[in-house]
């Protein structure tokens, strides 16, 4: 078998089997979690109703970070075992990660305006999220910058790994940078204040977001595989015509 991608039938079947379940988890999780958050959970005594933004903001933040980790693992797999599907998993993850990170940034700044009176402050957490967003965009841009998918895939995998090593250092340094100056805000919903009425919808939404991510993966990876196969077939067809 010369092309590992020529017959990834098992992988595709697995993805096809997972897809409806993932879709179900996504719809139910996001639907129930957000409805619960909007309809049944109490407002915060300090933040009032704006606390409801949290039910998107926090799962989005979690997903933004989680997906980068998943991408790094997939990239390592691609580099070490040279498994092309792993490369495609990483590629398919990036838009999802970027989207969740962007949602976190936007909802955060919509929350920040009423809470802090500013759309944006250069707080450590905000800043490291912004940097994560740039890492995603850089990764996507690198994929787009090559026409040869084999080249692009491995270059992007190296970038993702370098980024993964550096990400904790960036986060640490940014946290630490912000404590040097006056911290711009103090988040009030820390630890013990988390009431079960708040925690549950939060967790359910987060689960739904995970389901959404898995569903998106099954769709996007399949599309990538088909596109590659079509390319291979095209070359083969051109060669056949010539030989025959």
């Amino acid at each position, binding site marked *: 078998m*010369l*092309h590992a991608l*020529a017959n990834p039938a098992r992988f595709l079947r697995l993805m096809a089997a997972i897809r409806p379940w993932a879709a179900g988890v996504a719809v139910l999780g996001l639907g129930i979690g957000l409805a619960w958050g909007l309809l049944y959970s109490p407002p915060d005594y300090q933040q009032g109703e704006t606390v409801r933004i949290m039910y998107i903001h926090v799962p989005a933040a979690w997903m933004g970070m989680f997906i980068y980790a998943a991408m790094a693992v997939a990239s390592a797999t691609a580099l070490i075992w040279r498994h092309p599907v792993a490369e495609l998993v990483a590629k398919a993850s990036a838009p999802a990660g970027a989207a969740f990170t962007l949602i976190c940034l936007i909802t955060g700044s919509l929350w920040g305006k009423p809470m802090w009176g500013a759309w944006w402050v250069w707080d450590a957490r905000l800043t490291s999220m912004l940097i994560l967003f740039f890492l995603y965009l850089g990764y996507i841009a690198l994929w787009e910058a090559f026409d*040869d998918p*084999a080249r692009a895939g491995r270059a992007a995998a190296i970038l993702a790994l370098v980024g993964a090593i550096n990400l904790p250092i960036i986060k640490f340094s940014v946290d630490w940078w912000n404590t040097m100056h006056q911290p711009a805000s103090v988040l009030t919903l820390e630890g013990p204040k988390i009431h079960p009425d708040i925690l549950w919808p939060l967790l359910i939404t987060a689960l739904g977001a995970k389901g959404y991510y898995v569903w998106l993966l099954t769709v996007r990876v399949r599309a990538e595989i088909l596109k*590659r196969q079509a*390319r*291979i077939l095209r*070359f*083969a067809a051109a*060669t*056949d015509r*010539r*030989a025959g």
Partner: protein
Amino acid sequence: MALTVEQLACIRGERQLFSDLNFRLAPGEALLLHGPNGSGKSSLLRLLAGFLPPAHGRVLWDGAPALEDAEAHRARLQYLGHQDAVKSQLGTGDNLLFWARLYGLDPVGTEQAVTAALDAAGLQRQRHLQGGYLSAGQKRRLALARLLLKPATLWLLDEPTNALDTSAVAWLGELLAAHRAKGGMIILASHVDVPLKDARRLDLPEGKLA
């Protein structure tokens, strides 16, 4: 000492260029690669040089996999591609000097080796001329002169005669003959006649289906 190629296949951008390639090269032997444009001659040379991983098959040196120990493989070969690798901002002599240093010639030997190589390539007069001002054939001569700076068993040459005039082609012929007489091996791709006696010939057809 021998190079053996078994069932080699090469894929570029999801297109198979050749497959099931087999040959064996003993010291003093030479192999001429022929084939239409785009048939994969350069790709084969790059594969043998270790730039490209083979899609299938093996390259053996004395029976052991050749490409795994990259360092040892690098040490036994010299590669000359389509490009001359001449730095236009450096003088002709300085271009060679850099390669001589890189190949680890000792400081005393370096100067002499460079002078000798320039003489052989007929570039003495251009020694202080910037690489960018050389004519196309002079650049190619400079690239060939590099072959004299590093002892290596296997020469991989990609259309070395391009842009060379007749006297330079004759010089190249002498180079090749001398290398083979010392037990060297040569794999050379070319569309035109090359002064290379008793060379075996390998024809690469147009690429086939994967």
